[in-house]
């Protein structure tokens, strides 16, 4: 996400403004700390002119059952 943002020459603040969230939300998304809603993920992907699949990787944490 950071890479794509840089390619579009956008700062975290610019991207936050584009998708209508706080700058910290973009920061935590880039660090992989925050799991966004489907709507936010979609909005970010659209702002960066890419698809959801290319931008986010679904990584299900292994449970004890696994």
């Amino acid at each position, binding site marked *: 996400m950071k890479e794509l943002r840089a390619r579009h020459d956008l700062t975290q*603040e610019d991207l*936050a*403004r584009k998708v*209508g*969230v*706080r*700058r*910290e*939300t973009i*920061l*935590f998304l880039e*660090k992989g*700390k*925050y*799991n*966004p*809603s489907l*709507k*936010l993920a979609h909005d970010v992907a659209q702002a960066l002119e890419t698809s959801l699949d290319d931008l986010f990787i679904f990584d299900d944490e292994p449970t004890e059952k696994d």
Partner: protein
Amino acid sequence: MNPTNRIVLKAIATLLLILTMGLLGYTLWARGKTTEAGMAAMIAVTVGVFAAFALRNMAKSTRKGLPLEDEFTKRAKTAAAAFAFYASLYWWLALMYFQDYLAKHQLPKLAILGSALIFGLRYFYLTRRGNVD
């Protein structure tokens, strides 16, 4: 609601809280209860300092065209509230255990202050850490 109006409303609410605590502190001081008056003053100052920082950040965000609240802060608030509810149960249990050593009129104040503090600290922690799940 317009973000500027929201900031003004929050500033007024904070000012009212500080004034109330100040008035309470003064009344207690006039009655000779200096320790409790000091506590009220401390709360007023703490709220004032935190509110000043928070309101400044809100004004900055509004000027930059960024929202004051988004899905992340809403989720953090919900998670902090849930945590505060469970943690408060233990806090109230502790107060019940120590009620013989405390004045009766102090118990509700301590219960409310404790719960508010737990919520505030948890919200602060979650919004700094980023993981609200």
